[in-house]
């Protein structure tokens, strides 16, 4: 009988550390994620099923403990659970019309923290990240260098940068360079 092959998780940025005293750049711990599309009529049932209120205003998010719902478009959200809970099952339990795709392994995330976090991200992102325009809790799909990212401000000096796994070494590298520049 053949030996049974066992898949082991290989995080794309495992062990990497980057940045400067102005801004640290670290890989986020693995999380579960769904790309969620739904019409307005399904929002309340999905919110109840997911345990987090899906935001309906542009550039806003809602969080319950370690679960976050990020507005991406008028009928589109990224839902993240930092504890790795089964979001597909939670969305399905709503019995409301929706489309959910598990993107837990497509995406990975980088945490950028420190007084120079804005400057580090602005090294490759054209959005205005001042607190008045991009306050704590704000989120947006945007670009960083040549990669598409989803930016989520978790604190005044901290951002979660979601990107596709295949772009993560580029994103991590450019963020690290930006963080070093932010120290000057």
């Amino acid at each position, binding site marked *: 009988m053949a030996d049974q092959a066992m898949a082991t998780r290989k995080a794309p940025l495992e062990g990497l550390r980057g940045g400067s005293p102005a801004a640290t750049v670290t890989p986020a711990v693995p999380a579960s994620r769904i790309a969620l599309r739904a019409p307005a009529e399904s929002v309340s049932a999905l919110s109840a099923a997911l345990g987090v209120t899906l935001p309906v205003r*542009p*550039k806003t998010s809602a969080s319950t403990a370690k679960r976050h719902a990020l507005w*991406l*478009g*008028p009928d*589109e959200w990224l839902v993240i659970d930092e504890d790795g809970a089964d979001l597909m099952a939670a969305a399905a339990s709503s019995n409301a019309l929706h489309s959910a795709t598990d993107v837990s392994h497509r995406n990975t995330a980088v945490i950028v923290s420190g007084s120079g976090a804005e400057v580090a991200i602005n090294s490759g992102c*054209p*959005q205005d990240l001042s607190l008045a325009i991009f306050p704590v809790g704000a989120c*947006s*799909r*945007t*670009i960083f260098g040549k990669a*598409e990212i989803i930016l989520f401000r978790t604190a005044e000096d901290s951002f979660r940068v979601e990107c596709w796994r295949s772009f993560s070494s580029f994103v991590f590298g450019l963020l690290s360079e930006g963080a070093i520049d932010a120290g000057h």
Partner: protein
Amino acid sequence: MLLIYCPYCEEERSELEFRNGGDAHIARPTNMAEISDEEFEAYFFLRDNPKGVIFERWRHIHGCGRFFNAARDTVSDRFIATYRAGEPKPVLDAEPKTPATVETYEALEGAAQ
């Protein structure tokens, strides 16, 4: 950097987040199987390419992902108005407002003598 107002995100964003989608308000014939080759050519290929105001589709591809429409001055690159897909053309002033100070290709080439 050119800033474009997205009517879905309700704010101005960098042009880097957007992609042009060609002319707007091109009505697809409802009797496609019956029209002549010339009529199909006119619908599918022929565009006015105006010097001045043009109505275009744009997509906020690296943002909310939505298509919307824009009125843009092709001389100055100025966006005159943006509006949601499905809404009618907005009423604009008869003459496009192209400020004398705008840096057009022609103006820059003229000044580089």
